[in-house]
């Protein structure tokens, strides 16, 4: 048994080591908040996801695309879980280009559930020229595309400050405490009561940041809830099976004079 524990811990230590070696690098203390989706059985907060969607459409969507989301995702399990009618209503607010029709022409129609989120710009170049040369990144997997993840984006949204003395910023460049390099081309977005939440939650910048980052975390990892649920079961299953096999092994090896 001693050996087993030794073995298990060496694998475990190796994994810890390589995890750390990997993420080693400069670290700034990011702002923290209590994400409901962390932890072994963590789930998204539906209310927060729905509010986050509202913040996204009303604040972010004019510049940032979310090209991997479809309107149907809004009513899927594990997401904001709008009802299908609500999702259809949301979709029909957007115009998409379809076609060609039988006359060979493209036409616009209201979006359907199967359509992808409508993008604010036709292409990257248009996005750049409309935003002073900086491309507003697509937000669908952004949480996974930044080290620090949800905490990092939450911190950047709330990290606008006056630049330290002596730092000269160009026009259209803003100082952000948490942004990589401290310079960001997106101006501060979240001000008190910028949106009006239907459920009466006070729209403080912290609340809006938390909601929209929750929404982005879901968008980056839409199956997170299923993953946590299946993972929890899989681990319990493996532990029970390991114990059973351990006793089977003891039984079998008891036939020879040797230690397992």
């Amino acid at each position: 048994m001693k050996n087993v524990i030794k073995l298990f811990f060496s694998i475990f230590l190796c994994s810890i080591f390589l995890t750390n070696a990997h993420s080693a690098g400069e670290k700034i203390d990011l702002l923290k908040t209590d994400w409901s989706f962390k932890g072994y059985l963590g789930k998204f907060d539906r209310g927060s996801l729905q509010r986050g969607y509202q913040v996204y459409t009303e604040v972010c969507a004019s510049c940032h695309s979310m090209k991997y989301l479809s309107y149907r995702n809004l009513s899927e399990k594990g997401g904001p879980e709008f009802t299908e009618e609500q999702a259809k209503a949301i979709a029909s607010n957007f115009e998409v280009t379809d076609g060609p029709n039988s006359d060979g022409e493209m036409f616009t129609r209201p979006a359907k559930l199967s359509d992808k989120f409508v993008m604010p710009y036709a292409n990257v170049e248009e996005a750049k020229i409309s935003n002073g040369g900086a491309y507003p990144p697509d937000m669908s997997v952004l949480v996974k595309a930044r080290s620090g993840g949800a905490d990092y984006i939450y911190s950047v949204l709330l990290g606008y400050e006056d630049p330290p003395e002596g730092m000269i910023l160009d026009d259209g460049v803003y100082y952000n405490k948490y942004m990589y390099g401290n310079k960001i081309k997106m101006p501060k977005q979240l001000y008190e009561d910028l949106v009006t939440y239907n459920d009466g939650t006070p729209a403080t910048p912290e609340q809006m940041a938390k909601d929209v980052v929750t929404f982005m975390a879901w968008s980056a990892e839409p199956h997170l809830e299923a993953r946590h649920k299946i993972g929890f079961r899989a681990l319990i299953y493996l532990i029970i099976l390991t114990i059973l096999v351990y006793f089977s092994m003891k039984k079998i090896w008891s036939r020879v004079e040797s230690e397992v």
Partner: protein
Amino acid sequence: MSEKKKVERRDFIFTASYALGAVGVGAVVWPLIDQMNPDRSVKALASTEVDISSLEPGKSITVLWRGKPVFIKRRTKDEIEEARNVDIKDLPHPEKDEDRAKDPEWLVMLGICTHLGCVPLGDKGEYNGWFCPCHGSHYDTSGRIRKGPAPTNLEIPKYEFVNSNTIKIG
């Protein structure tokens, strides 16, 4: 006695390990099978809306639905007559035309021969309906099999009239 008990306990451990192991293998195999089923984006495209306002009587159009051709035929009076006057006892696959076409003027069906999946040709064959060139199946003006190797009538998909100009298939 104690010997027997020991044996029972050993058997229990082995049986339990095997049984639990089998459950695990099953749980692992399922995702590997299910991944080949239609995915969410495919399922989301399961319905198509078709504009039929410009279709003249006697003409038909073919639209793509779930990757398969769907025939939408605006039938003439004669064709409806012909379809309705058949004694269904004579049919290999008895179905009333009334059950196949909700609105007698409009016939909506999958354009796939029920024999081996070819696409039948319109306004052909001995029954003025459709004719499958692959193995010679003849369908009538209601898309019912009359002659040839196909076992059943052309399939009617789920569809509804959204308004007088639009049919939603699926």
